[in-house]
């Protein structure tokens, strides 16, 4: 997994609430057996018409936002299914950070496994950044994970909260499985104990 330290880039505004994982990446893209290549399906139904042509209005189809690396979105982003294809698609498109007032749990977790940073900020901060994002290439937003800040183009700085362990893993690009396997003796002990206590499991 790639590290996430700092990021300065164009942010795309997507001021919809309850953007679900079916909207982020619809099912026809779930038939892949790979993690890569999903960027073309990101927001498919909002991005393309029935003939597969781009819908000019959609934010990521506008020239200013084709290289967006940050997404500013409405409340409850990523609700719905557990599909990790959602962060895979964002990442493959080039988005490394999503900012919203809240995220659905599973999506939030999945982001961290893929080097994507979900940032939770209060409504006023998200509104401010949404306005900033509307300026397109004229406004760059900066994210600093170490300092836990997001800076708007006018210099306003917003601090955000993040779980220290998740932050540590993301800053260092650590593989969870490797970390857990360092505790394999604790798992062995647990299993042995469970075998006597709950033998039917």
């Amino acid at each position: 997994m790639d590290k996430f330290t700092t990021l300065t880039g164009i942010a795309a505004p997507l001021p919809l609430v309850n953007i679900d994982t079916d909207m982020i990446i619809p099912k026809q893209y779930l038939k892949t057996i790979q993690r890569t290549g999903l960027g073309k399906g990101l927001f498919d139904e909002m991005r393309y018409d029935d003939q597969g042509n781009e819908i000019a209005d959609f934010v990521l189809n506008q020239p200013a936002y084709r290289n967006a690396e940050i997404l500013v979105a409405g409340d409850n982003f990523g609700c719905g299914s557990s599909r990790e294809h959602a962060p895979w698609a964002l990442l493959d498109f080039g988005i490394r950070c999503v900012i919203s007032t809240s995220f659905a749990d599973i999506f939030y977790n999945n982001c961290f496994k893929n080097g994507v940073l979900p940032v939770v900020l209060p409504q006023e901060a998200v509104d401010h950044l949404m306005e900033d994002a509307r300026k397109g290439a004229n406004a760059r937003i900066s994210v600093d994970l170490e300092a836990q800040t997001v800076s708007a183009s006018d210099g306003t700085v917003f601090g955000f909260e993040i779980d220290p362990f998740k932050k540590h893993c993301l800053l260092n690009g650590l593989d969870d499985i490797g970390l857990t396997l360092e505790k394999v003796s604790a798992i062995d002990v647990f299993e042995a104990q469970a075998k006597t206590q709950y033998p039917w499991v």
Partner: protein
Amino acid sequence: MTAHQSSAPKTLYDKIWDAHLVDQQPDGTCLIYIDRHLVHEVTSPQAFEGLRMTGRTVRAPGRTIAVPDHNVPTTEGRDKHIDNEESRIQVDALDRNARDFGIHYYPVSDIRQGIVHIVGPEQGWTLPGMTVVCGDSHTATHGAFGALAHGIGTSEVEHVLATQTLIQKKSKNMRVEITGKLRPGVTAKDITLAVIGKIGTAGGTGHVIEYCGEAIRDLSMEGRMTVCNMAIEGGARAGLIAPDEKTFDYVMGRPHAPKGAAWEAALAWWKTLHSDEGAQWDKVITIRAEDIEPVVTWGTSPEDVLPITGAVPAPESFSGGKVGAAQRSLDYMGLKPGTKLTDIPIHAVFIGSCTNGRIEDLRAAAAVLKGRKLAPGVRGMVVPGSGLVRAQAEEEGLAQIFVDAGFEWRLAGCSMCLAMNPDQLAPGERCAATSNRNFEGRQGRGGRTHLMSPAMAAAAGVTGRLADVRELMAPA
């Protein structure tokens, strides 16, 4: 385990959590042991590939169960050949992975195959007090047994395969109590939709919900699974219901349930699995069962719930970001504010899914359909949740009722719940569905989904529009 037990009153969630704690860091990051891992074809290939690339293996294949369900066709001949190449590749990959890593497997040729959340309980893999995970958000279903069950992403699937644990922080405790008795025509699906309508799709975020109260106790195990299934639609990762005699009766004798002395030992522990008097709750919601009516969804979020006696709302009646979302929903759904819900015509009926694809659901729909027919021009599809449900429904004569009413009688799978296989709505088609998500495009691009109970879906089918099932019920 014992080391973590304290005398403070605990919730059911606390108890199961404590019994599975392998390690806890000072910052609260925990390692939780996983008793059952359910695997399906869509969210697992990348996880197995990850194991191969790193030379890792499946730590506990005996705790791991695989079944293809999401994209398998639901028509005859699928055990010989699957036309869609990508689907075939995914199913073949699951076949190979199950064989290579030695995990329990129910291929499409096996009568026990079905939707993973129906197969687990049916085969006795799901037991009270367990931790159960699956790369699918509706894993919450298994919470009906008093098991801590939730969906995980593919990286976590790989993590569980390799370590039989998950890295987690503890969620908060939320209690949803449904007091009193349901009125006629009101079912488990109406309860779960009414709860989401009340708390919103983010209302349970960060929480594990325990459902309790008389109306929940009165539900069958099937009904309880329907309720817990949609905990995720309320934003909660897991839903729980304390096990009781109904739970034990359901579990007893299932192929993988404990037997003899092991059963007695298990039962003794299971009987301690309830929230203690005085346990602390972070959030409490109470709904009176008598206040719940048969409901349907009108929009594209499961929180867009209204009694069937209502009318399509105006976007301005909402506040904040929901105004725009409601407008967008109405545009997508092709609905005008003020339209009576019972005046909305439908084109299709879908009965099935892990929410309502069990035998009781088929019985409820068949009870309405008996001696009736689908309205002209309405297409109906029944997709049993498993091969065993299908066989039982045939034995009970339900299949014949569906066929006589003009429904297609399909093989088991997820089918039109997410339309990954050929079972899809055409753009603009409107469907009365017993599944759990009414998102844009969920049942096919441009398709319009109204969520409801099986009896309500059947009522919609025979009247050709959204309908109040109470008007079709024989007077008591």
